[in-house]
């Protein structure tokens, strides 16, 4: 039986690792992984792991109730725009932050902050979140 790349990504997340692909033609990283390089379309790929460490560039929040029922217990939650140290942009939940204007204003005023993965589990699915360090 073949294994979906999507399942492999979430299984790997459960091991605390971020699965990506490296393009053997253009050396671009595609994260999360798909069946083709997002930069050149090549399918000549190898799986790699990203560190998940990076810089939180901007932090906002969403609404409650959330559109996706999976997040009903944690909404509204802080959600950030992040540049990983491998040069990949990713967006995700940022844990440990109250999504209140005063808190978010303070984080905005301080500027980019270092983050690392904080993999959480919601309704049986491992989810890539981040926490400020």
């Amino acid at each position, binding site marked *: 039986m073949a294994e979906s790349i999507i399942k492999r990504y979430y299984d790997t997340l459960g091991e605390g690792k971020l699965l990506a692909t490296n393009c053997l033609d253009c050396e671009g990283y595609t994260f999360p992984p798909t069946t083709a390089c997002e930069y050149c379309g090549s399918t000549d790929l190898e799986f790699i792991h990203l560190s998940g460490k990076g810089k939180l560039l901007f932090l906002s929040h969403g609404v409650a109730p959330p559109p996706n029922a999976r997040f009903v217990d944690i909404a509204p939650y802080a959600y950030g725009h992040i*540049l990983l140290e491998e040069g990949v942009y990713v967006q995700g*939940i940022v844990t440990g932050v109250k999504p209140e204007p005063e808190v978010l204003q303070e984080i905005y005023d301080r500027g980019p902050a270092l983050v690392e993965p904080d993999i959480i589990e919601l309704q049986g699915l491992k*989810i890539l979140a981040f926490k400020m360090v």
Partner: protein
Amino acid sequence: MRNKLRDGVSILGVGCSQFGDLLETPEIKGLSLQELTNQAVQEALADAGVDPLEIDAVFIGNAMVHSSQLPGTYSQLAKWLGMQFKSGVHFEAQCSTTNVGAAMAAMAIASGVYGKVLVIGFEATRTRAKELSPYEREPISTDQAWAWTDLAVNQAYSVPQGYEIFSTYNGLVALGYCRKYGISIEDYDRGMMEICRSRRLHGSMTPKAILQETLEDEAARLGFNDLKEFWESRYNPFVAWPSRVRNVVSVADGASAMVLGRSDEARSYSVSPVELLGFGIVYGDLPWYGSDPTVWPIDRMAWQRAYQMSGISPRDLDYIHTHDCSNICGICNLEIAGYIPEGKSLYYAMDGRMGYDADRPVSTHGGRHAFGHAWAASAGSDTYEAVLQMRGEAGKRQIKPWPETAAIHTHGYAMISTVLILRRC
């Protein structure tokens, strides 16, 4: 890519239904989606002076089949629209649907395959079919509407891991804009209030808009004498700090339609045909932006292609609508388009320069917030407004002098950036 239309293509006629709620809005209350869509189609055919038998092909779009329960729309609506035995297809590009349809029609006409094409978009974002009833409808909750809408967003990774539209499409872009241009959050909020005030004024002058109450009147109705106090009150909470609920879309049920044909035959059908000079269509998956959330690659490329195909430059534009499902993304595109200088849109708004009677008119029908947003129908409603303005038929909100050249930009989830350039013949 040659990026040229071989022959000229014009919009011969446009139509648009009332945008509202099929359970509440008097003008459309009790109608089926078939009948709502027919209102837009009949208006477009009459406007063009084209007989239904002259239509060669129908491109019909509906994005959220969960609420319409009308897949295979070409046949399901064929008899309702008087469009049996046509060529055509059901397609969707979410909130860019009707204008992508116009581009598809233009390519089909310019290639010589079809002479006249009817493009249609319809959507129900407030109501859905009630159980198994063929005619009853019931309300859709806001979170349910967004959950269905978000099916158009990366389902492998983004949505399962916490994506939602308000932060990604609004709050994070707003913070990027403020940081890039050194704008305080307080000034951002004030500028956004002025943009909303302009859109609501335009909506109050647009009989088909879902919100026809000015922001000032709404504030007074809710007991506020001071507009800023109302803006910052519990009636206008943050949906994604620093952006508030009155800077986002108002969901609506609605339909729009347009008839396109060859430019060299346009004069015999329409006293005021509007030529589709060019278009740009570029899509991309998340993340939509990198280090600079204010300039998305798909938008930059779509505008470049539209300008190249049409042979015009930004200074030629007399009127513009940019997708303002989120007002901050709308102003980013005003600036990418070159209609307003980079970093100046909020100040233009504070100075009242985006109104129908000002020097840089924007979204004179009220945009997504005041006119309302019926996903697949909305791009057509924007084109409808541009055509009315270019013909001098926009009533109290008429731009003077009538615009000769206009641009309409839309974002179709998630995300297809679409630009049409129109010129009065």
